[in-house]
């Protein structure tokens, strides 16, 4: 009874945020693997920006993989933060592919885009890895 009272008072005092935090989504190894893969790709692809053909292919690959990350994450309950972030990451990646499809792409732009994807994937990897097990 004492335990229940402690937990209930904690929840009532602090409101829904505490409950959300307590019930938050647990660590998902597949989600972690997907974001690690995206980070590793971006890290490798940014070194190939001088080769237009390779970079165009790489842009398609990372756009596909960030889309896969969004699709995998979006039906995991209480995962709103990661869904939002995943969608934003996908927009960044899709933009590079669109640029390759429509116009010439400078090596500087290609490198910045992959660096942005790598940095963001690193942040997401950190929070996914930090989830309760």
């Amino acid at each position, binding site marked *: 009874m004492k335990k229940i009272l402690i937990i209930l008072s904690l929840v009532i005092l602090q409101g829904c945020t*505490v409950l959300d*935090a307590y019930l938050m989504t647990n660590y998902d190894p597949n989600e972690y693997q997907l974001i690690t893969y995206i980070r590793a790709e971006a890290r490798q692809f940014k070194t190939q920006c001088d080769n237009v053909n390779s970079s165009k292919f790489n842009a398609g690959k990372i756009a596909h993989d960030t889309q896969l990350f969004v699709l995998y994450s979006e039906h995991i309950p209480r995962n709103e933060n990661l869904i939002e972030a995943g969608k934003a990451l996908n927009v960044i990646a899709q933009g590079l592919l669109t640029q390759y499809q429509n116009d010439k792409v400078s090596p500087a*732009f290609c490198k910045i885009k992959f660096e942005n994807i790598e940095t963001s994937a690193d942040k997401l990897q*950190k929070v996914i890895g930090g989830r309760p097990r």
Partner: protein
Amino acid sequence: MSVEQFQQQLLECFNGSQDSNVQTAAQTANQYTEMVKAGQLSKDEYVQLLSDIEQTNIINKSVDNQQVMEYMNTAITGLINIAKIVG
């Protein structure tokens, strides 16, 4: 307003904010502006990279929220474990 005035505004954001995300965004936008001026980026590329700063802000905000939740989760789980031992 001119490009230089917008750059000055970004510099004010950089100097005036304590938020590292805001500082990074302002610094990055200025860096892109210098690159397009130097001809290293096309106008389309420049516009897209500036839009990416917005997307990065969404990512940073989501990541910050998630980190707070994870921190709270650790504290709540710890309190529950203590309650179990005490009870």
